């Protein structure tokens, strides 16, 4: 369950940054991304999958959230 900082890059894409691992990836898709809630299954451009319980209302980025690995 790593702490992940989510921030927007210049192009407006969401970046998924794990400080401990120095991993920074672009988020390819988010399961739930609407006015009421944000979260669920998150897929990154490198193909890895992560999960977070949907947050309502959607958080303001940048922010730090706790994710689970998608396969757990």
């Amino acid at each position, binding site marked *: 369950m790593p702490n992940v*900082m989510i*921030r927007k890059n210049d192009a407006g894409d969401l970046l998924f*940054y794990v*400080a401990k691992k*120095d*991993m*920074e990836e672009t988020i390819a898709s988010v399961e739930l991304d609407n006015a009421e809630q944000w979260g669920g299954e998150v897929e990154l451009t*490198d193909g890895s999958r992560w999960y977070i319980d949907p947050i309502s209302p959607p958080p303001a980025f*940048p*922010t*730090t959230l706790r994710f689970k690995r998608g396969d757990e």
Partner: protein
Amino acid sequence: MSALTREETQALIQEVLEVYPEKAKKDRAKHLAVNDQSVEQSKKCITSNRKSLPGVMTVRGCAYAGSKGVVWGPIKDMIHISHGPVGCGQYSRAGRRNYYVGHTGINTFGTMNFTSDFQEKDIVFGGDKKLDKLISEIEGLFPLSKGISVQSECPIGLIGDDIEAVSKKQSKALDKPVVPVRCEGFRGVSQSLGHHIANDAIRDWVIGNRDGDESFQVGPYDVAVIGDYNIGGDAWSSRILLEEMGLRVVAQWSGDGTLSEMELTPKVKLNLIHCYRSMNYISRHMEEKYGVPWMEYNFFGPTKIAESLRKIAAAFDETIQANAEKVIAKYTAEYEAIIAKYRPRLEGKKVMLYVGGLRPRHVIGAYEDLGMEVVGTGYEFAHNDDYDRTIKEMGNATLLYDDVTGYEFEEFVKKVKPDLIGSGIKEKYIFQKMGIPFRQMHSWDYSGPYHGYDGFAIFARDMDMTINNPCWKKLQAPWQQPADQEAAPLAASA
């Protein structure tokens, strides 16, 4: 383009790896790569930030070096205690040439060494009492210091001293920040973790100090220069360009920087990051907590400076954007004259770099402005995100080497035969004795500044006087020189 093709470079790597035993070969192969600009993510071609294995020679530093030497050390109005045995502080004292203004020993302490000088009894009985006494003595002798940081050396973590408790107690007693930093040298694989630990200590003990204090007059054009350590005056030659643009530089991190500047940084409009590797952590934190955006820039060489000035200006209004163009126009004649003077002398020369932090990629533009070509580059302690940024800057089929060993670097140089090597003091004399011109790119070989337009003039002069120095033709005794050749070029004797 590079002189070597992709296949030749690949073959060169294989050849160099040949001497290693099977296991070491497999491990080292992951750290050496041929650059391919089409690769999006560096982790597909190069492995970085891994532990150096015993038996191979590495030039990496330790976490203490990353924290005391790089991030905290240059903060001039604080006293940084090297807590532990005397050597770590003394042998690194003032070696990095972080210039500053002030009266050393009165209100600034940059070049001084403060240490608790651990003895056997401190290891056996613990050193907390000594630290406590030391801090009281510092306060008596140097009352104008604005704060104290306790930089742990290895034994502190090993014997389990509680430096946090001492710091808290003394901070209260002195009414000054006393910052415990857990940067024991054995942590992590290189100095890189020291940067991270130092950033976290700043986050926990410094950044929040002025929350809720609105007495600082904020302006619309406030910026902070982050990750510029003022080596040889770098931050000053960068700062004047930003100020000429109409921006107000509130803080310099951490070259010629002060504690209060750092405390005020969360109030700026934009953080400008030069050394991404050592200070991205705190910038990310400020973005998250205070909503201060950050941006990387590059002040090496006129092409990159103009690019960066425009990029910085784009974050502000039209006045600043117009000013940026004015600044670029103002210096155009100056840098064109420099290029006209030195480019004919340096055109086509090949350079190999092996440094740390940001320089293996940032200085490429400056060399290219002089018509030179970087044929190999590598970092001591980079992570994948640094290589992501490097791949685009480097030409195709050039060499990339991570945490290169002494043997590999020498072999690469023998085969690639560059005209100049830019690396550190540990490499300098080996390559000079091999007859290859060399510049230290950590300390600018006691020259500098190299940042900004003013720095570019010095950079160009230094590269010229190194490469075109007549001494390189005198390396072979006259009677050993072939008769048909006046002066054998370099590497003939190597």
